[in-house]
């Protein structure tokens, strides 16, 4: 049963006088307990797609359904983790987690309790009163994750959450995210992650949706059925087979648009739409 339905989404950005087509008729659906990765070359519109699902961006045509209801603006049921963390620098770690709850009208005592609990869960006990300025990149992203989860969302969107961290930190945080996803006590069970790191996607996701260069289209989907925990299978031939499969799809996407120059392509798309 699908919880999120992305239906025929088309999106253009206006640039100067012209328009640039970034997403071209994109559709897919995500069900309960799914971990989906959107993979594609930079500029293919995958982050835009994520923002459309979050209700942060408007579409030109098509729609996103969440439990059958169209998403037109942000809802606490769908939360997000940002690439550059998106923490408010003037608030402490605790306040950063608390403030979305405050806006939802949760009373002071309760929201402090919830926030502390989630900070503890991401391993930041003792850093409640530290400002983002004094936290490392990995710790900042932990705050970002705690903030997103504290709202008890059903869906967690992640926009390249590990790409601004060093590899060792990223590794630890990937495990953290997977543990959260697996934790049955948490209401958050649908994860949609944007990545341009194929190995990371194969390591984490159940399904990888591969997108073409701009204008972004879905080229194909790869179902990953490596048993979990996958950390034990990182050297298996099967793992590399999946990586190769995704890389092949990416290459095919590239060759699709190679024949035409990008500009003429954009022009033809725009005149069509």
């Amino acid at each position, binding site marked *: 049963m699908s919880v999120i339905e992305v239906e025929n989404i088309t999106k253009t950005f206006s640039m100067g006088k012209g328009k640039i087509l970034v997403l071209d008729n994109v559709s897919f659906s995500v069900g309960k307990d799914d971990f989906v990765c959107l993979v594609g070359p930079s500029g293919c519109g995958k982050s835009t797609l994520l*923002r459309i699902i*979050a*209700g*942060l961006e408007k579409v030109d045509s098509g729609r996103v359904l969440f439990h059958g209801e169209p998403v037109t603006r*942000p809802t*606490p049921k769908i*939360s*997000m983790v*940002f*690439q*550059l*963390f*998106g*923490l*408010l*620098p*003037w*608030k402490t770690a605790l306040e950063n987690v608390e*403030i*979305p709850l405050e*806006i*939802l009208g949760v009373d002071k005592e309760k929201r402090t309790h919830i926030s502390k609990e989630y900070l503890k869960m991401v391993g930041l006990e003792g850093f409640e009163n530290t*400002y*983002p*300025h*004094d936290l490392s990149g990995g710790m900042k992203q932990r705050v970002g994750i705690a903030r997103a989860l504290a*709202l008890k969302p059903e869906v967690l969107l992640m926009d390249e959450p590990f790409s601004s961290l060093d590899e060792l930190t990223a590794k630890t945080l990937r495990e953290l995210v997977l543990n959260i996803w697996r934790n049955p006590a948490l209401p958050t069970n649908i994860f949609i992650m944007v990545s341009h790191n194929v190995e990371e996607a194969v390591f984490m996701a159940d399904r990888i949706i591969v997108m073409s260069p701009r204008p972004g289209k879905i080229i194909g989907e790869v179902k990953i059925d490596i048993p979990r925990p996958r950390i034990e299978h990182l050297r298996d031939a099967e793992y590399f087979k999946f990586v190769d499969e995704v890389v092949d799809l990416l290459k095919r996407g590239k060759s699709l648009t190679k024949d035409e120059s990008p500009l003429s392509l954009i022009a033809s798309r725009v005149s069509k739409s």
Partner: protein
Amino acid sequence: MRRYIISLVGGLAILYLMTLIIMASTSYPEIRHLPLYTFSTIFRIVITLLISILWGTSFGILAATNRLASFILTPLIDLLQSIPILGYFPMVIGFLFALGPVGIELSVIVLLFTSMAWSIFFGVLGAISGIPTNIIESARSFGLTGWRYIRHVILPAITPALISGANLAWCDGWFFMIAAEYIQYQGEVVAPPSGGLGYLLARTAYYYEDIKLAVTLLIFITFIVVYFNTLTWHRLMERASTGTFKPIFRMDLSGVGKVLTSRTNRWLRLRLHQPKRFSIIFQRLRKYTRIEKIIAVIFTISGIIFILSSESHHFPDLGIILEGFRAPPVEELTNLPMLIALTMMRLSIAYGISLVIAIGLGILAAEHKKLAAVIYPIYDIGQGVPILALFPVLFLGLNSLLGTPRIALELTCILMLIFDMIWYMFINIVSVIKNIPVEIKEVSQLFGFRGLSRVRHIVIPSILPAIATGSMLSWGTGWNTIIFAEYMPSSEPSIPPLSIPGIGSLLDKAGYEYGNTVILIFILGIIAAIVLLMEGLVWRRLLRKLEKYHVEV
């Protein structure tokens, strides 16, 4: 290109028409020379600009590439740039007035130079320090040294800074033009032989007290400034901003708004500990070593002694200084604490008002796109008005309205300060609001910050550092302005000049009326001490506290 020619010819035609109308509608003898006066002011500023560019480029390159030169030049020039134009009067009068009419013409250019040259020097210096290490290293690995290094690496790298610095200098020139062209020496006005718009405006306001003509002239001057800005600087800056390493300052504000930003930036680069982007430049410029400071102090003291000795035509000793402290306006020095308090009070009132208005407008501009579309253009044109030139016009208007010159001057003073301070506050706030990172905006959208909670949790905290910087800058510029705003010169020796009590007007009296260099320098020192003290004790501390508010991207 065609649009360019149309705007060029159209602007000239409007200028010509305005000149004709002004000349036809008034009968003062000076007005007959309006074309000449216009020409000589423009010519003067252009000449000074060229000198400033030559000087700034060569000295900037020298100070940036030669260790010894940077030891001496950078702190010294930083010191010189903080001296208000009035501080240069004694030197100019001492040396150049002896040369007769040519000397007076030269004095105006020298005075303009002292308010125009610095931005170019510091722009060049900053641009050279900002050349990325990889570029320097690759140039070196290809064997570029000496002149070829300057030609192929340094000159291209400093071009944008040179253009924006020159633009800044140009605007500074128009700003101080009225102060430079209306020199008073021992109570008498020394008119530059070829006249000038600043002189004409001051004469109209102070001598003829003709408000209509003064306003017309002010509009005339503003038009010239805006005309040249759109015609040359906008285009040059657009062209220069492509193909360089990185934008000097990313801002969507057009035109003169940019000028204030870069002026702000220059200031910041020198006075503040700023994170990341400028940190390398900062470390070089901000932390002068003790030796550098000592050298600068020695230079200044010897400079002062030199000026003093040239005035009295014999080598100075303690006697001259004592003599200076015996001459008028020494009797007013006993009231010094009171005068300082009065001046501080005016500054505080103006600061409070500008703060409230600037924050209000800034938030409105951030929250309402439609309102922003109205505010920004007004702001842009307002920027074109040379604020010092506004002074006589404002005073005349208020005086005819109120009838009491003293109260009119008091009000004019505070209004001038507000006009001057508010730009710095506003430009800083707006540039921050426009640059709030996308992620922060998305976070505020995602978690449902709306209305008051958005203003409280997102907008206000993100503009706090800008408010602190803006405050520091506006106090700095406020001190510079109040020197002119507490004192109303008169055109006839028989009428005593009007002034309101304050340390600014005391400085003017020492300079204009009595020509007492010793007291002039003494008061300048006190003002500098107050400014530095406030910077160190209030603004820098505040800024350091707010450092963590900067969004790291």
